[in-house]
């Protein structure tokens, strides 16, 4: 006897194809995506260069100080100019990319997995489990996220890991809520009942049926979340709580620029522009994804 499986919602595969088709039409979203891809390439290239040259390039060009040339403005040799220690800002910007990008992405990835699982469990099992989990989320949400991240880093110390943890924790409640809302909608649909009637276990139902169909709002939320996380990383570094000098990071570069604000506009404008363009691209992507996933919401 052949075992028959309730098919996961047959609309699923064509949903992704449809979404991609709509997304392609949104030129702005495509520009955003290209920029982010570019940043990823930059980040990875810098890591590769470091590995290949055993950080000699880094030591020679990115953190080496050259005080005679400090504050020099943009020129042919140094297109973004030099900072307060005479270091090339362009190179520092490139090397700083990996921190913002990867920290933001990993923090959100962690938050998505933990928050998403919590939300899925809360939404699926309901009643007491739901109550307990969501009350806990409410408590976390009662603390403004920047405040929470700052407190965690303040307590645990300013290492990369701690910044990651801090930001991830501050985003967990949002993802828990999003996934829980999706799960509540999906679990009442008939194909789930059908699966249960065929004897599928809870675990199987959650992972094979409910989560794939709750992905859409989660993806949008995650993209926008990375934008916020990058902002938080920069903000923490700005306050001196994140990446420590001489490691280049956009936020700390801005923070240093504060003391030397009279010495040159390039110290202030360039790092901030980098942060802004990154966040802008992610926001555009997030908006584009939201419109592509459900055109009805587009108005």
């Amino acid at each position: 006897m052949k075992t028959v499986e309730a098919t996961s919602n047959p609309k699923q595969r064509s949903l992704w194809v449809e979404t991609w088709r709509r997304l392609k039409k949104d030129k702005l979203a495509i520009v955003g995506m290209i920029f982010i891809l570019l940043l990823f390439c930059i980040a990875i290239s810098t890591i590769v260069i470091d590995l290949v040259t055993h950080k000699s390039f880094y030591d020679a060009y990115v953190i080496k100080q050259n005080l005679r040339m400090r504050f020099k403005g943009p020129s042919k040799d140094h297109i973004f100019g030099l900072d307060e220690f005479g270091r090339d800002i362009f190179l520092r910007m490139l090397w700083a990319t990996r921190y913002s990008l990867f920290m933001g992405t990993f923090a959100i990835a962690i938050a998505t997995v933990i928050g998403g699982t919590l939300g899925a469990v809360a939404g699926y099992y309901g009643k007491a489990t739901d109550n307990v989990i969501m009350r806990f989320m409410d408590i976390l949400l009662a603390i403004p996220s920047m405040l929470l991240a700052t407190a965690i880093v303040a307590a645990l110390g300013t290492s990369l890991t701690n910044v990651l943890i801090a930001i991830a924790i501050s985003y967990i409640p949002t993802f828990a809520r999003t996934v829980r809302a999706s799960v509540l909608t999906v679990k009442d649909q008939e194909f789930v009942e059908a699966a249960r009637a065929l004897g599928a276990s809870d675990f199987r139902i959650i992972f094979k049926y409910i989560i794939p169909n709750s992905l859409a709002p989660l993806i949008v939320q995650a993209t926008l979340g990375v934008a916020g996380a990058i902002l938080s990383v920069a903000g923490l570094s700005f306050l001196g709580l994140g990446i420590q000098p001489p490691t280049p990071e956009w936020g700390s570069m801005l923070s240093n620029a504060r003391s030397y604000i009279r010495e040159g506009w390039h110290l202030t404008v360039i790092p901030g522009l980098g942060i802004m363009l990154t966040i802008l691209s992610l926001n555009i992507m997030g908006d584009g994804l939201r419109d592509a996933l459900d055109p009805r919401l587009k108005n």
Partner: protein
Amino acid sequence: MWKYILKRLLLMIPILIGVTFIVFFIMSLTPGDPAAVILGDQATAEALEAMRVELGLNKPLVVRYGNFLWNLIHGDLGISYRNRIPVWPQIIDKFPNTVVLAIAGILVALAIGIPVGIISAKKQYTKLDNISMVLSLIGVSMPNFWLGLLLSLLFALKLGWLPSQGMGQGFIPLLRSLVLPALTLGTGVAATVARMTRSSMLEVIRQDYISTARAKGVAEGEITRRHMLRNAMIPIVTAVGLQFGVLLGGAMLTETIFSWPGLGRLMVESINSKDIPMVLGATVFLAMMFSIVNLIVDIIYAFVDPRIKSQYKKANASKRVKV
């Protein structure tokens, strides 16, 4: 109505207790020895030990938390490690300055965001709509600390029109010193409010009851005011409440840049000097303020949306006879 308020108040209490516990727990994880921070490097081993006992650091976590909570209820948040002055009075001294800044920021956000959102929605698809939405997108993406530096650079340094540091004494100096920080804090929120207002308005514009109002021959201006706005504002009210939390968080950065003597700057200084009681006290305090603001927002929301109001008017239930 009062039932609703009471219910929300009661719900808030366990959450606040949870908040205090979480923050306390986080701060307790701080490595390092507070006794050493206070007494300095030169202290003897016995002095350090005595200080630890005085600070109650030898007791288990739960007991320390219990003490903390007990003291909190009595308005005692401990003593700052940095300057040996009680924490609570310091918070109370600096908090009003942050409130002034936060209110100014929200006013900027609402004054810019709501009209832009309404006009964009009514003129959807036109150039005006596209431009405002692009600007809003940029506003949302701009790090507020960068904006602060840019504004400082332009208006204070290059043009010299406005002060960039500190809080002015006296009415006019206060307003002048408030401009740049308020703009910094408010712009990001303004952009978010504009986007939310636009989408809420668009949602409302599509509704059938707007068609009904038009079919009655009511003029467009009145329809916007009476029918659209009153409905569109309902979700905005809650959203603005949440933005207030963003504001409180962002205040740390803004106050640092503009040397504004508020709670945010105090927080940053305390963090940098590892002043645990201060950080603990300030965080708990701000979290409480945030919860109270949300409660107020929920109450306003109930007033504005009659569907919520009548959920709590049990008296009418028996009178209603449905067809």
